[in-house]
């Protein structure tokens, strides 16, 4: 599937790299793996974003530098820029490469073990609360 024309995709990727640059140990947007396929996947799941994304990307002038285009869009069409940012960051944070760097395996299954229960009893973390006794107000005594 190809959800975006080549021109729009080029604009998205260029602005995507401005919004999500390589820094602090994280890759830039287009270096995060097959982001084109992931963007298509995002748009397939959220088709209502396509219209406003296309509109925003069409405002980018041919040959306009991506950083300048992003600044201008943010001033003139903040909702459009937000849509570009949402599509790019949604795709980015779903990339397996990115998740691996972040140590995030998604909302994984991690059922609790019995050892994890009641740890606050074993190390007395809860004891001061118990020792202070009841704090509720009895309506019959005011």
């Amino acid at each position, binding site marked *: 599937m190809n959800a975006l024309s080549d021109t729009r995709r080029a604009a998205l990727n260029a602005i995507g790299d*401005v*919004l*999500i*640059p390589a*820094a*602090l*140990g*994280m890759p830039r947007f287009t270096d995060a793996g097959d982001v084109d396929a992931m963007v298509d*996947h*995002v748009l397939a*799941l*959220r088709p*209502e974003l396509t219209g406003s994304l296309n509109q925003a990307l069409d405002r980018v002038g041919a040959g306009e530098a991506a950083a300048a285009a*992003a*600044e201008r869009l*943010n001033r003139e069409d*903040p*909702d459009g*820029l*937000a*849509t570009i*940012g*949402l599509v790019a*960051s*949604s795709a980015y*944070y*779903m990339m397996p490469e990115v*998740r691996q760097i*972040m*140590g*995030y395996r*998604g*909302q*994984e*299954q*991690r*059922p*609790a073990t019995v050892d*994890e*229960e*009641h*740890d*606050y009893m074993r190390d007395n*973390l*809860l004891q*001061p*609360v*118990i020792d*202070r*006794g*009841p*704090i*509720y*107000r*009895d*309506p019959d005594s*005011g």
Partner: protein
Amino acid sequence: MGEIAEVLIIGAGASGAVAAKHLAEAGVGVVCLEQGREVSSDEFYGDKPEWELMSQRLWHPNPNVRGLATDYPIDTSESDVNPLMFAGVGGSTLIYAAHWQRFMPSDFRVRSLDGVADDWPFTYQDLEPFYDHMDVEMGVSGLAGDPAYPPMTPPPLPPLPIGRIGRLAAKGMNELGWHWWPAPQAIPSRAYRGRSQCARRGTCMQGCPEQAKASTDLTHWPDAIAHGAQLITGARVREITVNAQGLASGAIWIDRDGVEHHQRAEKVIVCANGVGTPRLLLLSGGDRFAGGLANSSGLVGRNLMMHPYAATVGYFDEPLDSWLGPAGQAIHSMQFYETDKSRGFVRGAKWNAMPTGGPLGMRSAYGGAPLEEAWGENLHRATQKRFGHSFEWGIIAEDLPDPENRVVLDDSLTDTDGIPSPKIIYRNSDNTEKLIAFHLDRQREAMEAAGAKSISTTTLMRDCGWHLMGTCRMGNDPETSVLDQWGTSHDVPNLHVLDGSTFVTSSGFNPTATICAIALRSVMHMIETRADQRVAS
């Protein structure tokens, strides 16, 4: 024309499911009409990489954002808070966080104790056996002995672990000498009655993909149906009908092909939630009940309470795995729950310590701010600061009943069947604003004591109307209340309301344990007094 149901229930959410199960088990013939559909657990995205993406739209709690045909849109242009809900078998429990909180004894005596609002027509002790019963039906996990409550029957399951975030929050509270306790949740810490043990995916508010969380499609509907209750989905009720004697005689509903039906009934129970129920009563009654059915008091739709929500997020250096579930609450605190008039306001709030979710967060909300604030290197900085390294102290702020805060029918907006939508008129009171400001200050202290490296606060979240209460209040006086203490209309003796609309005050607690306990108490009374009741023939 079809058969006459002994009891017609409108709405298959929390209260409707409790009513259907217990009536059906007592041999009462039940028909339930639900505008939504059955949702299967494999439709939820919690076990898929797209979870956060879909939580912003298809599984968003605000029906105006979801825009599904099964929802009705709501006019919120005159409200500080958006009401949140879900339409389907299980209703809003499909996406609730399952904090399972009882009210305190003082909550039922607000007028006597604090001179505001009204006392309830029953006490905590009256409701206690029904709270106990619901704990077992839902499979509540929790730790007995919370000193914020009178002694109570222990819940059926041991508490879920409080995790790293709970322990950190608790350390801060201990530092200050403040109350906290492992939070009670309608989420099983062990496999329970056909439901799985919670896998801690943390996606409870977008539906539980594990069939663990106690949503009433799992906890109540199978039993109700096994005992003969008839559940009709895709059935949108547009009016409750009334016979020549002024009794409720059934409801007109529209199926998904647009065909209208009249379901006749001897008795009608409305369980369409704190917004849907007043909407339906205001749509009903015709000339005989001008101003809406059951509305001689003029209070149908009034006194809407939604628990304005504020929160404090603390950011920590150490890894907290703060995307781990349950999404609802690890520990709670009632340190500042009861009234202390020296603070300049009455009533209080429960606090809940919660995880902060996945990496995406709310990126779409950043449009318009200077580019470098939200994007570029700062995007990575902000994500690294929050993701896996933060937790939230939330405030369930008690809002007092105010007749000006209300649900009315909208002049122009309709659902997909052309039925007028509700409009919400709701403003935060001065008391609420002072209450929130005080609690946020204390939460900052709690976060500092927990060792937070930095702290941010949200003074009022607009998408926070999870709890819909008060719009058909109970009471002993028909002039100042819509329903009696059993949820029966003062005006129409075979019309009942059992959802959050019945609440006299909102308390500072998540309401569903109380909604279900009240529904159960009322239904048990209905069963016991079956022989004496007036019904439509």
